[in-house]
Structures are given as structure tokens and as C-alpha cells.
């Protein structure tokens, strides 16, 4: 009886699959989210982010696998699991003809908040989401930013343990995006949050962990910084002691360095100089070897700039694996041409 862990993970997904007819939307997804974590769910459109969220919230049933929310199986006790979740669906559909107040009251009632606490719960949600000014307005009259706040307010009115937000910032203007991000970060301090997005900086701003999903599979899982620091670029500009150095020889020299994976030529405005962009192997740092090699070859370094591979590029690398191969085959020398 008591051998169950004191608090099960907030989300537990094992071998989750989903077929829509012949389409395989999810091909065996496994991950766990402990209590209190803020997870960014990344992936191109159609990768399976929304499907996973729809299964977690019980809107769609899984084809196979185990899905548990706070230890409650979504398949066995869908209503029980749903009580633990606050959900903001993609595009945030709302009843346009209801007043904000009316709508939140309806949600509070269905969420089984005791009658004497409904007022307080709505006041709290309204205050947290900054809806004081529009409480009495019809939802249909609100701006997109306010609508999004209403969507978030209905998701937190019952103070759930888990917030599931499907593309919470899509379609908002830059100011609204910042507001909603701050709001989510605030909520993330006390709740477990899983949010999907294809805006990568968002993950670095808000999430302690990123999950990258592609074609129905998880292709990366880790802290956003960790995912973004694997591999990197070094941009450099070199010149010879007397006039321009030989392109082929310099290229060969760079290519021969132990931790350099690729060498690409860049254009430069500097006179008699050559510019290159190096891709490093893994997280290795070839700068010392590079400098020594240049000195030996009597070349002068005009500039050197090391850049970590951004989350953006990691994402592109992981989610376009197939497409990437085709691209390389097509124009391997496009940069040198």
C-alpha cells in the first residue's frame, strides 16, 4: 500500500502512440515531468506537439502507451485527470457572446469550486491576469492580448497543479508577447507548466527544460542552454604578412585542425584578407590550436569570434535531418562558389 512514491511525477508518458487513420502522429513518446518544472515543447508544425497536449488533456484518446497526470491514468479516469489540469488550447477558442465575468464563473462552477469561494477564485484569477478593466465586457469585444489573458485566467481559476499551454503567444504583437511571457513565468514559479511553441527564444526565457519533438518522436531533451551549446561556430579573418594569403592553402590548414568539422569561406570587406567560418566538433574549442597553426604558417589573425550554436540551429539540425541531407547533396559547394 505505502510503497507508492510520495508524489508521482506531474506528467508520466510512456511509449505513447497515436494514429489518425493511416497517419502516425506520434511514434512512441516517453518522458516524465517532475512537479514544479517548466517545460518547453518544441517542434515544427505537425510534429505532434498539439496531439501530445490533446492526449494529456483528454480531448483525444491515445492509440497506445501510458499517460498519467499526477499519477492518474488519463485513459482510466479521464474526468479525474482533467480536474488537475488547466488547459489553454491552441488559438484559445472562447465563447464570444459571454462576458469575461460570466465565463469565468461558468468555468469556476464546472471546476467544482465551492459556491462561497467562487468570487474569491475569480478575483484572484482576474488580478493575476490583469483583467480588472474588462471583467464586465463581452469576450468578443476584447483585443487578442486580453483574450489570451482570459484564456489563461480560465486555465488557473481552479488553481491546478499542471498548466498545459498550446502556443500561448502565437498571433500576439511583441508587447503582448512580453506580457504573456512574464505572466507565464510568474505562474511557473508555483506550478508545473508545459507549453508548446516554435518561437525558440521563448523557451530560453521561460523554460528550465526543452523537449524537441519531430515527426512524432522526441529528438532532444535537456536544459535549453545545454541544447544550445553543443557545437559552435568560429568566425575569423586572416591576412598574410605580405599581401593576401593563398586561399587553398589556408583552407587546407584550417581543415586540418583536430576539432574543426567544416570550413566555409565568407566574404569580407578587409583588403587582402580571407574570412572563414568554422564549425566545431561537439563542444570542443580549437582556438588555441588554431592560433598556433596560423603563427606557424606566418598568417596574421585580424579577428576571431566564437559563437555557440544557437538553440535555433540545434532545432533546425534535429528537426530537418532528412531534409538537411538532401540539401547537402544538392549544393555542397554553394558557399565556395
Amino acid at each position: 500500500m505505502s510503497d507508492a512514491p510520495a508524489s508521482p511525477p506531474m506528467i508520466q508518458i510512456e511509449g505513447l502512440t497515436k494514429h489518425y487513420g493511416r497517419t502516425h502522429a506520434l511514434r512512441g513518446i516517453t518522458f516524465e515531468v517532475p512537479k514544479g518544472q517548466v517545460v518547453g515543447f518544441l517542434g515544427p508544425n505537425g510534429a505532434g506537439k498539439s496531439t501530445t497536449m490533446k492526449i494529456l488533456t483528454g480531448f483525444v484518446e491515445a492509440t497506445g502507451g501510458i499517460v498519467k497526470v499526477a499519477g492518474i491514468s488519463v485513459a482510466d479516469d479521464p474526468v479525474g485527470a482533467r480536474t488537475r489540469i488547466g488547459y489553454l488550447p491552441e488559438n484559445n477558442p472562447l465563447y464570444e457572446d459571454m462576458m469575461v465575468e460570466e465565463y469565468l464563473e461558468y468555468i469556476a462552477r464546472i471546476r467544482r469550486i465551492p459556491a462561497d469561494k467562487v468570487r474569491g477564485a475569480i478575483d484572484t484569477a482576474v488580478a493575476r491576469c490583469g483583467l480588472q478593466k474588462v471583467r464586465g465586457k463581452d469576450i468578443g469585444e476584447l483585443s487578442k492580448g486580453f483574450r489570451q489573458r482570459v484564456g489563461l485566467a480560465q486555465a488557473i481559476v481552479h488553481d491546478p497543479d499542471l498548466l498545459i499551454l498550446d502556443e500561448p503567444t502565437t498571433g500576439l504583437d511583441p508587447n503582448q508577447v512580453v506580457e504573456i511571457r512574464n505572466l507565464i513565468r510568474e505562474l511557473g514559479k508555483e506550478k508545473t507548466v508545459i507549453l508548446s511553441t516554435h518561437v525558440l527564444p521563448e523557451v530560453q526565457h521561460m523554460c528550465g527544460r526543452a523537449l524537441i519533438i519531430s515527426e512524432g518522436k522526441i529528438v532532444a531533451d535537456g536544459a535549453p542552454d545545454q541544447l544550445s551549446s553543443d557545437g559552435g561556430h568560429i568566425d575569423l579573418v586572416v591576412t598574410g604578412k605580405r599581401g593576401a594569403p593563398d586561399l587553398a592553402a589556408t583552407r587546407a590548414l584550417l581543415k586540418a585542425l583536430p576539432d574543426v568539422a567544416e570550413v566555409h569561406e565568407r566574404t569580407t570587406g578587409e583588403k587582402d584578407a580571407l574570412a572563414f567560418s568554422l564549425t566545431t566538433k561537439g563542444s570542443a574549442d580549437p582556438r588555441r590550436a588554431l592560433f598556433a597553426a596560423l603563427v606557424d604558417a606566418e598568417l596574421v589573425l585580424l579577428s576571431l569570434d566564437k559563437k555557440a550554436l544557437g538553440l535555433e540551429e540545434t532545432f533546425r539540425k534535429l528537426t530537418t535531418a532528412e531534409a538537411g541531407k538532401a540539401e547537402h547533396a544538392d549544393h555542397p559547394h554553394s558557399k565556395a562558389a
Partner: protein
Amino acid sequence: MHNTLAIARRELTSYFHSPVAHVVLAVFLVVSGWLFFYFSGLLIVGKASMRGFFALCPLLFMLFVPAITMRLIAEERKSGTFEGLMTLPVAEHEVVLGKFLAALSMMCVGLLCTFVYPVSLALIKAPGSALDMGPIIGGYLSAVLLLSSFIAFGMWASALSKNQIIAFILGLLLCFALWIPDKAILILPASLGAAVQYLSVNYHFENIARGVIDVRDVLYYLTVTTIGLVLTTRTIAATRQ
């Protein structure tokens, strides 16, 4: 029950905010009012009964019920609010029952407005003559029962399509299918015809509207309504696949 009532409440608010529901109710009252005076024989023979009005109720409801039910589920599926609804901690049958109650209340409001007719009959009847209340009470009871069965099937139509126009036409066809077996007696041999006729909402409607309340007729309506509600629930549950 708590969830069902919460959903019914929201749905009713939505009806009263919606111009469509108001228009449908207004047209219903105009048409039924005209039918009442035209077919009651009031102006011609001076007899005071609502027979003519109730006899036309099935046809009237066949048109107006699908107009009220077409939005119930189709609208939410089209606008996307269905996802919010289906991820709330409520069971499918609670959603269906809540929406059913709201539509029934809405139609009952319309029916309530027609109380003007029996009241005016009572006022203008020839002095000394009696207004037979039996058929009027029976008529209203059977009207509510008929509404339930039509609403249940109209709602099923709304669950079957995201398009409200299609939901309306489908609802009309389903209500028609519930009504038409009554006419089977005209083309089928007597014994078979009687059996088929028994399936018709119209047949039972006329029984109760005569003022004779038979448990079998009431049970018939409750069964038809339940079938409609179960079909709707199953169709909604299937959207999770």
C-alpha cells in the same frame, strides 16, 4: 447533475444572447398564432377548442426544433470551444444532457407564450358553454414530450456535422423520419400498417392530445428521447478518437 445544470445555464445564456434563437421564437409565435386562429374554427363556427393547433404541432416543431438545436454542438466544434468543453472535468452525457435541457427550456418558453390562446378562448367563448380543459392540458403535455424527442434527435444531427446548415437539414430529416410512419397505414396492409404507425411520434401525440394520458404513450416518448440522447453521447465520445 451539478455539471449538467452548469452547462444548461451557460447554454441558455448563449440562447438569449443569440439573435437566431429570438428570431426562431418570434417566427414560431407568429406562425402558431396564425395557425391557431385559422384552424381553430373560432371565426367560422365559433367552437372553442385547440384541436387544430395541436394537430399541427408536429409539423411546426419539425421545422422549428432543428433551427434551435442546429447550433448546440456544431457551433462549438466549428469555433473550437468544443475543445475547452471536452477538456473540462465533465462526462460526455453531462454535456449532452445540459444542452438538451437548455434547448427544451428554450422551446418551452415559446410554448408558454401560446398560453395566450387557451386564455383568450376562455374569455371569448359563448356564455354558458364549457371549455374542455382535458384536451388542452393533454395537448401541452404531449407537445413537451414531442419536443423532447425532436430535440434529442435534432441535437444528434448537430453532433454529426460541424456545419449548422447541414445539421439543420439533417435534423429536419430525422424529425420527419420520426413523424412519417404514421402515414404508413395508407400504403401498408392494415395489421402491418398499425405496427409501423405505432413507431410514429404523431400517433402517440394524438393519443395524449385527446386528453387520454396513457403510460405507454409517455413511455414511447421517453424511449425515443433517450435513444436520441444516447446516440448524441456516442457521437460526441467518438470525436475523441
